[in-house]
């Protein structure tokens, strides 16, 4: 530690800093030069902004406090503060982008630094022999595993103060997307495009052996494993491309661009087709034979542009590639086919060689090549910037505007760059059509940091038009029909074995719209992989007033109700059976708990079972139905009234508690009418179904929910999460838990719920021209936000003042304009409120120029105002 000096620090400072030896003339000169140097820049920039009306960020900054103040009153202080933060951030970004110092000095300085010292910038790494690399892509390879919980936590915490925390984990977003597609009968295949340094590290590490290629992030292999666990096929072309490099030394990436070569892309497309044939057989159809021709293309890499070197410099020359544009029947250039049953959702790796604006030719992109090798038309929606959610969000906007690109699809191929795994914001995107927030159903299961539980749910569902048993992994896989189709027979009463390896269910001939009076049927055993089905008993039945037909005493012994209205114990291995009740019941047969101490018969009386006498001593009935027991027989549970509550009873003390109230606020407000409770065998997860309020067990929109339970205290931990979202009834769930992180659930549960954003539809219709008054505009993104791309659109709201041509659909119009093109801010960015402009407007849907570019829209949601497009205001 510091010992006290004799001279105080203030005295020392005054002696040292307060007494400078400098001649007055030198002091004046230094002071003047210093002030002049700093003030001259601001003076010149302000002068430029005053003389040139467009592009200046000052009006937004000046208006921001007023807007924030208004928001404070409307939406609270936090919202006002958030608006202010956004405005000041945008202002500072714009100021730096428009810096005259940067404009004057940057190209020359960058050229000198790159030429003499091999320096790149914050985004571009300059490698040896002319190789350029995108810095985030290199960081993806050298950085820690993107699924490492600490990394995920840091990324979540590292978001912007004014924006919702980013969602760094790709798995929930992909699983959620797969589940939503599955609800529509569409399969999903993921293709992860490798980054350049994974296959061409020679520019950075020339001594690295090709044997180690492809280099991968430590989490990449576990990521693929987890996708496999979620039953989502994932194709990674990296290994195949690395083999090509090892065998033929062919470059798989462009030297000065982030993207792959045409040959690598074609190779990936061809191998993806083989992958699809193995994993996702597509329905047969008449093949379409496309043709290809070779075209030479010369281009300048996007990374060279990002370096912002002087125009015409020769440090990194242009590159030549041979592309093969795909021609359809009649030699017409390939175009995406909205009626195709395969849709490619992608990013710039899909758009390159397809979108002429990227500078590498057209009609020869990934979707085109896939179409060529598949011999079938393919649809494509690909967005160059905006992160891994951009293409999904575009899909939703299109659907809201009446252009549902998922209609008629059987397969979606989701392509994204591997670097997005470590740096992208994996937002969850609700694919359902636009609707008011108040009517939005509970969000489907969306785990944040991996699943809090491993296991699965099995339930009865009417989604296929017959009652079948369906299953879905708790981690978020697509729902899958587990029991086979049997025309005329309905499946019910699923019950999972204690080890989770198999399930019993009842297959019977019964009316589909009501509980049958006396319908017995086959009690079947089925492995959870769908195989090994066998009939255990020919004449089994459920208890009264509900579809519960069996209890597992242990892995081999099953308690079931026979058609004779006696209860039986069955050895599922030897098929030996014994009676648990000696006499048949006249009305309501008994289902006995696994410990053979209590029994229920549809009424939640939880009567005592006398094993010696082989009879049930009936206890006083309670109101309610659908009773059942915990596996250890210590407590029972049931629905105590129409739509809830779900109660439990301690069978030793007869103490009663409540798990879920009727209209329980812990469940999303759209679905609080609860029924069909069931507890996992380990007692740690409660499953039930809930509808928006309709009782009908056959026609209502019941969905399956699960909620964690503390098996010791029976307390419900965390909010119930929805696991199905189909409009048909999903009921009588059973749940099996392989591992459950209750703490993680507790942390995750609170964010569930809340309204989803209302989608903004894309306009269709005829072009028109008008003079209009600007009402408000979305914020324009900075170049940093859309890096490495340099163009984006924003949505503004206008009020029509005078129609010059055609017929606008209304007075108020939302129009997408270019905010950034080739890195330059466009006039719309600086246009003030109430400015009048002449606009030539066309429907946004179908405008080919904007294809692949992000559209930023933060105007208040209004599904009644579709988005149009205008190049102007000029």
């Amino acid at each position, binding site marked *: *530690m*510091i010992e006290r000096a004799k001279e*105080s620090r*203030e005295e*020392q*400072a005054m002696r*040292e*800093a307060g007494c*400078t*030896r*400098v001649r*007055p003339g*030198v*002091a004046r*000169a*230094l*002071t003047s030069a*210093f*002030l002049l*140097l*700093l*003030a001259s820049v*601001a003076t010149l920039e302000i002068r430029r902004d005053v003389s040139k009306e467009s592009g200046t960020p000052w009006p937004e900054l000046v208006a921001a406090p007023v807007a924030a103040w208004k928001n404070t009153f409307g939406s609270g*202080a936090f919202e006002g*503060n958030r608006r*202010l*933060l956004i405005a000041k951030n945008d202002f*500072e970004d714009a*100021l*730096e982008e428009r810096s005259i*110092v*940067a404009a004057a*000095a*940057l190209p020359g300085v960058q050229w000198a*630094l790159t030429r003499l*010292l*091999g*320096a790149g910038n914050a*985004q571009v790494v*300059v490698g040896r022999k002319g190789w350029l690399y995108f810095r985030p892509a290199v*960081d993806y390879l*050298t*950085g820690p595993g993107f699924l490492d919980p*600490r990394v995920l936590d*840091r990324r979540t*915490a590292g978001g912007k*103060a004014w924006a919702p925390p980013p969602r760094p984990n790709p798995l929930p977003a992909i699983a959620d997307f797969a589940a939503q597609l599955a609800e529509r009968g569409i399969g999903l295949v993921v293709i992860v495009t490798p980054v350049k*340094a994974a296959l061409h*590290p020679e520019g*950075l*590490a020339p*001594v690295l052996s090709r044997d*180690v290629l492809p*280099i*991968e*992030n*430590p989490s990449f292999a576990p990521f693929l494993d987890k996708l496999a666990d979620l039953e989502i096929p994932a194709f990674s072309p990296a290994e195949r491309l690395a083999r090509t490099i090892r065998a033929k030394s062919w470059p798989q990436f462009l030297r000065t661009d982030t993207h792959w070569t045409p040959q690598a892309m074609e190779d990936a497309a061809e191998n993806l087709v083989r992958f699809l044939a193995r994993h996702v057989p597509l329905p047969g159809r008449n093949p379409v034979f496309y043709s290809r021709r070779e075209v030479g293309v010369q281009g300048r890499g996007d990374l060279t542009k990002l370096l912002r070197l002087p125009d015409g410099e020769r440090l990194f020359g242009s590159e030549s590639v041979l592309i093969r544009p795909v021609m359809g029947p009649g030699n017409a250039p390939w175009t995406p086919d909205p009626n195709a049953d395969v849709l490619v959702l992608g990013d710039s790796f899909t758009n390159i060689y397809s979108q002429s604006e990227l500078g590498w030719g057209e009609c020869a992109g990934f979707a085109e090549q896939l179409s060529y090798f598949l011999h079938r038309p393919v649809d494509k929606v690909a967005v160059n910037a905006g992160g891994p959610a951009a293409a999904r969000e575009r899909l939703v906007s299109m659907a809201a505007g009446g252009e549902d690109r998922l209609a008629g699809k059987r397969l979606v191929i989701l392509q994204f760059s591997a670097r997005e795994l470590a740096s992208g914001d994996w937002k969850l995107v609700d694919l359902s059509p636009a609707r008011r927030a108040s009517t939005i159903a509970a969000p489907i299961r969306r785990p944040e940091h991996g699943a809090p539980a491993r296991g699965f749910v099995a339930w009865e569902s009417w989604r296929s038009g017959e009652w079948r048993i369906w299953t879905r992994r708790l981690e978020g896989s697509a729902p899958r029909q587990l029991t086979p189709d049997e025309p005329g027979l309905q499946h019910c009463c699923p019950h999972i074995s204690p080890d989770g390896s198999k399930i019993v269910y009842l297959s019977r001939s019964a009316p589909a719209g009501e509980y049958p009076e006396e319908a017995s049927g086959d009690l079947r055993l089925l492995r959870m992989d769908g195989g090994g089905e066998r009939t255990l008993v020919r004449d089994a039945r459920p208890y009264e007033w509900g579809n519960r037909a069996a209890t597992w005493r242990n892995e081999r012994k099953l308690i079931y109700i026979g058609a004779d209205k006696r209860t039986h114990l069955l050895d599922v291995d030897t098929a030996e059976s014994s009676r648990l009740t000696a006499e048949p019941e006249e009305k309501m047969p008994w289902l006995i708990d696994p410990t053979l101490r209590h029994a229920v018969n549809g009424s939640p009386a939880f009567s005592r079972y006398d094993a010696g006498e082989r009879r049930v001593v009936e206890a006083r009935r309670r109101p309610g139905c659908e009773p059942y027991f915990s596996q250890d027989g210590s407590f029972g549970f049931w629905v105590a009234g129409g739509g809830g509550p779900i109660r439990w009873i301690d069978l030793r003390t007869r103490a009663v508690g409540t798990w879920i109230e009727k209209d329980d606020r812990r469940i999303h407000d759209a679905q609080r009418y609860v029924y069909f409770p069931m507890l996992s065998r380990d007692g740690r997860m409660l499953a039930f179904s809930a509808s928006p309020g309709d009782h009908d067990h056959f026609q209502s929109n019941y969905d399956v929910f699960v909620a964690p339970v503390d098996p010791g205290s029976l307390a419900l931990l965390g909010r119930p999460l929805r696991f199905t979202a189909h409009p048909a009834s999903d009921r009588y769930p059973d749940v099996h838990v392989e591992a459950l992180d209750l*703490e993680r659930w*507790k*942390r995750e549960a609170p964010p569930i719920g809340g309204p989803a954003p209302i989608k903004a539809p894309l306009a269709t219709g005829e072009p028109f021209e008008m003079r209009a008054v600007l009402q408000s505009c979305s914020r324009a993104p900075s170049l940093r936000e859309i890096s490495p791309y340099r163009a984006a659109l924003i949505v503004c709201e206008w009020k029509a003042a005078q129609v010059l041509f055609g017929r606008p659909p209304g007075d108020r119009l939302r129009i997408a304009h270019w905010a950034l093109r080739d890195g330059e801010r466009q006039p719309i960015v600086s246009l003030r409120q109430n400015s009048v402009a002449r606009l030539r407007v066309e429907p946004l849907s179908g405008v080919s120029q904007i294809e692949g570019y992000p559209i930023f829209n933060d105007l208040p949601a209004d599904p009644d105002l579709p988005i149009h497009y205008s190049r102007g205001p000029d």
Partner: protein
Amino acid sequence: MVFSSHLFVYYFLPAALFVYYALPRRARHLWLTTASYAFYGWANPAFMGLMLLSTLIDYVCGWRLGASPRDERRPRAWLAVSLVSNLSLLGFFKYFNFAVDSYAALLTGLGLERLRPDVGLRVVLPLGISFYTFQSMSYTFDIYRGRTKPLKNIVDFACYVSLFPQLVAGPIIRFSEIADQLRHRTHTTEKFARGAAFFSLGMAKKVLLANPCGFVADAAFDAVSLPPLDAWAGVLAYAFQIYFDFSGYSDMAIGLGLMLGFVFPKNFDSPYHAESLTDFWRRWHISLSTWLRDYLYHPLGGNRKGPRRTYVNLAIVMLLGGLWHGAAWNFVVWGGIHGVWLAMERAMGKRSLYRRLPRPGRVALTFVGVLVTWVFFRAPDLAAAGRYLSAMAGLAEVRPGAALVGHFFSEPYYVLSLVIAAFVTWGCPQTWDWSRRLTLTRGALALGCLALSLVAMASQGYNPFIYFIF
């Protein structure tokens, strides 16, 4: 707002200086306070209220302390109000998340997961809170101890607490050090010129040296695996980054202070010239170490209660000093190592082996020791620090991706930056000494450095602000 930004350098600073000098003297503190709040609020307007609250509490406490005779009990109560409120603010905003996470981790470790608190609240750390609460507390402390008198004008006090030159990255200016200047100070061209020189050199340290070194350090510390040499190069780069960044900011703060007529004390005194860790702490972040000495170490008993108590006091001070730098266990470990090291140095006195080494050997040994402890300071968590130390020791697995990181250690631009950083560290005089005599040549050199820094600032997008955790 950071000093090395387009907005500050070209807009805020000229405007602040112009209005300051255009106003009559009595209005200058009001302007400085307004400008400082705008400067602070730029990071997050919501934080302004917090600083205002801290200011109001300490102003009232200072006023009551000044009004009470020293032999009464009441002054102690007002001091307690000041300390409790400031420490509560600091504790809540800086350490709440840390406390909750640590408690939860402890319960998990003990197998008591069921008792873990279900706390959904995550607190956002207000920028610079560690600096201004310490400054604010020094005001009431100094009045209580009779070292100074309370300020009558609340604007003067608000100006002291919020003064933008040293608000977000220090140095921590104690009230007693600046009290007289708040009442009266001179504004001369000589002071301004030296301030400009300080600011220019500080900017050069930050932009031309700290930033490229930081680029290399980030590459190393963000890498999942590294060969040993690269790991050492990475931590060396970080040692230069934090020194030039921190001392560069301090120089800019001192320079800005001089331009506004204030003279702030020295905060860095060539710390990598230190011959021991004790010497290092005489030279590194002097405003913090003296604050901890005067307001923590001495009240704990300092070295007056025997050797054992001295060692314990040193360890406590350094542990808390570590925690002051960041609410994470790696900072606690960093502080703990420094505390134990300081205690050992004190215990061994002149008998220690390295006291017998020649001076360059002592400097080198101290530097290497400090270098190793920087790993805890830079790593995002303890596990990462452990991995990094393993890499330095050659015990970690080297993955193929590590070869890519090696590029940053061989790129001429970064190599040159590290070489220049080393030269400036050990071969050049410090800013205080160099700028004591300003000739035309030196002035031109300083402005040249500034111009070069501004060009680099505009052309290189990498410009981290590493004090957001302080």
